[in-house]
């Protein structure tokens, strides 16, 4: 969490440390794959063949790899939505709800202004998507800033409300003539452009740019310094005249806005319509990714890549070995368990010397 505030270490040491971290995470992910191999064996499948399929499906072809990137877009954004407020010590469990509100607001624009040209409609959708997510974060941030209710609880509660608003709008007002459980497909002008003939859409650019901005702001600006100060010691920051409440409100709402953007990107870039249960827990995955990466930008990129390999590979496993798609969540869970249960670094050193 306080990674950025460390004094600049010497290059050789730094290189070793990066290597150490890479090896540690590599081993942990390997262990998770071994555990899941046990599950595959128990269910009478050949784990080696299954993993060969999984990696062939994700790394074996350009299209397969592009699908991994497509799966990465929403979780990269929701991870950022959690990581930013975490820098000032706010816990945003609510990316799931903010994602839904972003999707709902963007869908409203896509359906209401469908006659507008693309260059006008898409910015409106982005703006409304961000606004939806930010509004959904405003209430928890406000209550937190006046010291009334903890943001963890309020964001969690609002997570359960937002999908019901989506259901209300889709079933009640927006559904297409033929099917009641989804909106009609968006017009072409309301779709984010895709690249290289794959399903990779502009959302990836949003994610990478925001990641770079996040890194730059935290490392190189006064805002980043003040945010790290608040996250490090709120009282000390307050006495130094940093406007804590303003930071809480603004940073939390920006976080919500990013999650809203993820929702907008998902409905506009990926589905091209809104279904009330379009998220398999992107917000929660984002929370876990941000937490696993300790809010570090490169770590977020890496962890969301790993998680999207698992998610995409799951599709393949479902096709080749007749397991339900949901079973891939086990591989995800094992990865998380192993990382959560990892020995902390000092202990590792102790064991080495012992």
């Amino acid at each position: 969490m306080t990674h950025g505030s460390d004094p600049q270490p010497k290059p050789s040491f730094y290189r070793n440390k990066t290597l150490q971290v890479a090896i540690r995470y590599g081993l942990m992910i390997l262990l998770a794959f071994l555990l899941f191999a046990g599950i595959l064996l128990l269910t009478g499948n050949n784990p080696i063949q299954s993993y060969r399929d999984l990696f062939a499906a994700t790394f074996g072809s350009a299209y397969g790899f592009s699908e991994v990137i497509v799966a990465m877009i929403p979780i990269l954004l929701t991870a950022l939505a959690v990581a930013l407020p975490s820098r000032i010590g706010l816990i945003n469990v609510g990316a799931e709800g903010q994602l839904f509100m972003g999707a709902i607001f963007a869908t409203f624009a896509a359906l209401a202004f469908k006659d507008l040209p693309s260059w006008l409609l898409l910015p409106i959708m982005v703006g409304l998507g961000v606004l939806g997510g930010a509004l959904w974060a405003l209430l928890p941030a406000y209550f937190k800033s006046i010291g009334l209710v903890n943001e963890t609880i309020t964001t969690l509660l609002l997570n359960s409300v937002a999908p019901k608003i989506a259901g209300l709008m889709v079933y009640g007002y927006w559904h297409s003539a033929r099917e009641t459980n989804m909106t009609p497909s968006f017009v072409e002008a309301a779709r984010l452009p895709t690249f290289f003939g794959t399903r990779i859409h502009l959302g990836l650019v949003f994610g990478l740019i925001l990641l770079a901005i996040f890194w730059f702001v935290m490392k190189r600006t006064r805002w980043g310094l003040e945010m790290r100060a608040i996250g490090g010691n709120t009282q000390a920051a307050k006495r130094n005249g940093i406007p804590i409440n303003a930071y809480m409100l603004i940073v939390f709402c920006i976080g919500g806005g990013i999650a809203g953007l993820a929702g907008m990107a998902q409905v506009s870039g990926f589905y091209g319509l809104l279904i009330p249960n379009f998220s398999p827990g992107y917000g929660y995955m984002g929370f876990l990714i941000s937490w696993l990466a300790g809010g570090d930008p490169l770590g977020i990129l890496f962890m969301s890549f790993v998680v999207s390999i698992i998610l995409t590979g799951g599709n393949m496993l479902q096709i080749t070995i007749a397991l339900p798609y949901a079973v891939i969540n086990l591989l995800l869970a094992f990865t998380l368990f192993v990382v959560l249960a990892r020995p902390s670094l000092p202990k590792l050193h102790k064991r080495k010397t012992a």
Partner: protein
Amino acid sequence: MSLLSILGVLSSAIFSGTSLLYATLGEVVNERAGIVNLGLEGVLLISASTGFAIASKTGNPYLGVLAAVLAGGMVNLLFGYLVVSRKANQLASGLAVIFFGYGLSALIGKPFVGISIKSLPRYILPGLGDLPLRYSSLFKFDVLIFLVIPVAFLVWWFLFRTRWGLGLRAVGENADTAFASGRNPQLIKFQALFVAGLLVGLGAAHLTISFTMNWTEYMTGGRGFIAIALVIFSKWHPLRAIAGTLIFSGAVAFQLLLQVSGIPISPFLLDMIPFVLTLVVLVIWGGTRKQSAPASLGRVYQGTE
């Protein structure tokens, strides 16, 4: 609207509320020991699928209940390994348990999709046996429904009237102080989680073996999150949890009544009630909340090394 339809709605509200109350009671127990289990949804799913599988294989619903209860305890022990032994972050571990539950329950439940089972036998409320059949069938409940209120009182008694409960609450308030007074916080946290898992397992068993009588993926449909909301709503108190569940079940019943009577109101709007209500109550309590939540809720006990 006939009396019959009103009674029918009440009866189904009781059936849907029971599993919720068990799950809420379970979460009250572990939160009183200072541990937030956001993974309740996952625990419910694993318990429900295990219970259903055993009930279906053996043909004995009570064995199914037993399996569900034990499964709940086991999953919570796994969660305890992460958050107590390994000192992992409770929110992240809880979310990981949710994904674990999605995966494992899909695996366990896969051969049982579309299969129906012999449900728990239902008994008529005493003294109502003389009613005409179409009425009396609405007052037939299984043993888990009859037990849920006594269990709530039992949990209250254990938490507030026994030494074990005192120790458990002490750990939830301040584990270091509890340790200084000769208790073993880690052991107590594990015990609390195990008991909580058993209770959640009862809820899951009722949901799948008695209420729906079938298995589908993701069948809990957010009940775990509703239960977490109800724990806060009931201020971490087992008896107030009864009231909280009644309000929620009332909302469900109200919604069904409106549907029966043909008033067009979206079920989604009513599904928001428990969450919005909890939010409003939290805001109204404001400052007083601090006295009711266990003081070290969610905090990692580092121990004395």
